[in-house]
């Protein structure tokens, strides 16, 4: 820590224009209320969203909304195949494939 934050010469602090900010927590609390409402709304919609296989790239989205690690290990070919196939296929049919020598990106996208 001492090495990292070794003092580096800086311009001097000016004596003028040094306001001390004074404010209450009210704006922050109002924002927090809005955030809680948005989160609650998002949580309610997420339940419907998990089975919404009619959207584009639903498999990738499923992997981030349900945390299915198998989708992360799937190859690009499988993803391309899954994008071409009908979307109403059972999601649990996704094969848990660990392809040796795969050089594709690890990311579900």
């Amino acid at each position, binding site marked *: *820590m001492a*090495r*990292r*934050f070794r*003092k*580096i*010469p*800086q*311009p*001097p*602090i000016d*004596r003028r*224009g*040094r*306001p*001390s*900010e*004074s*404010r209450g927590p009210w*704006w*922050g*609390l109002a*924002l*927090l209320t*809005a*955030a*809680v*409402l*948005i*989160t609650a*709304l*998002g*949580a309610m*919609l*997420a339940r419907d*969203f998990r089975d919404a296989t009619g*959207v*584009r*790239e*639903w498999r*990738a*989205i499923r992997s*981030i*909304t*349900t*945390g*299915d*690690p198998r989708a*992360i290990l799937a190859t690009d070919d499988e993803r391309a195949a899954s994008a071409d196939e009908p979307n109403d296929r059972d999601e649990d049919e996704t094969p848990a494939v*660990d392809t*040796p*020598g*795969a*050089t*594709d*990106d*690890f*990311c*579900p*996208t």
Partner: protein
Amino acid sequence: MRDMADTNSDQKPRRRPPRYHRFRPLVQAGFLAVWMAPIAALRSFPGCVFHCYACPLASFACPVGVTGQLLAAGMVPLLAVGVVLAAAALFGSLVCGWACPFGFIQDLLAKIPSPKFRLPNWTGYGRYLVLIGAVVLVPLLWGTGHPLFVCRICPAGAVQGGLGQITARAVRTGQIQNLLSVTKWVILGVFLLAAVLTLRPWCKVLCPLGGFLGLFNPVSVFHLRFDRRACTECNTCRSRCPMGVKVEKKTNVSNCIRCMECTSCGAILPAADLPARRGEAAERGR
């Protein structure tokens, strides 16, 4: 002011300033354990820090990745926005300085002895370019396949997701497989080099989540205050700030990560701690 403090110094010993920043590595390590506790049920929920959900040990989804993915699918990422907004309203960018695992990695890399360079403050606007461009516009207009989609250029993905997956597969199969594209290797190399040569380069220049959290620094419930009466113009706050913030001019700015290094002199303190200090300063000034 300084003279006044000196003449009164023999009357009452000055209380040592609180050293919050000394506990920061411990707190960061504690949070790392939270973000890397793989519980499948929680991975469906976005966290409030920059941590790639492709990491085999990730316990929460990355809010930036989730946002990009859902926007590409034409959906509003309400859950991710709500969680991040809640963290921003309560703590602002305190999350970046104390809880973000990717920030912790950069802090550790910065401990490697080397000459350190300061990046100019205007580079901080790059975070908003990434936020608007790679996180919002690119997925909305071109989808996740675009080479500038945030997950494709993200160094957290390369470090935590990529290296994590390589390690996990090596442990499982006994073979080291290259899972990263050339682009990701280049991003990884540039990031590692930059993190050694300067303090928190990703946070300062490109992090979209830090940029978003920083926007709420002026209104967050937790905030810092500068007590001009306690300032002795020692310049410690400026010289210790890894982000180059002139904290005595404006304390709660968007490019501050609230690492609290500036609090070591006692003139800048969390708002909750300042009233006691004010009384003390007034007593010294009498």
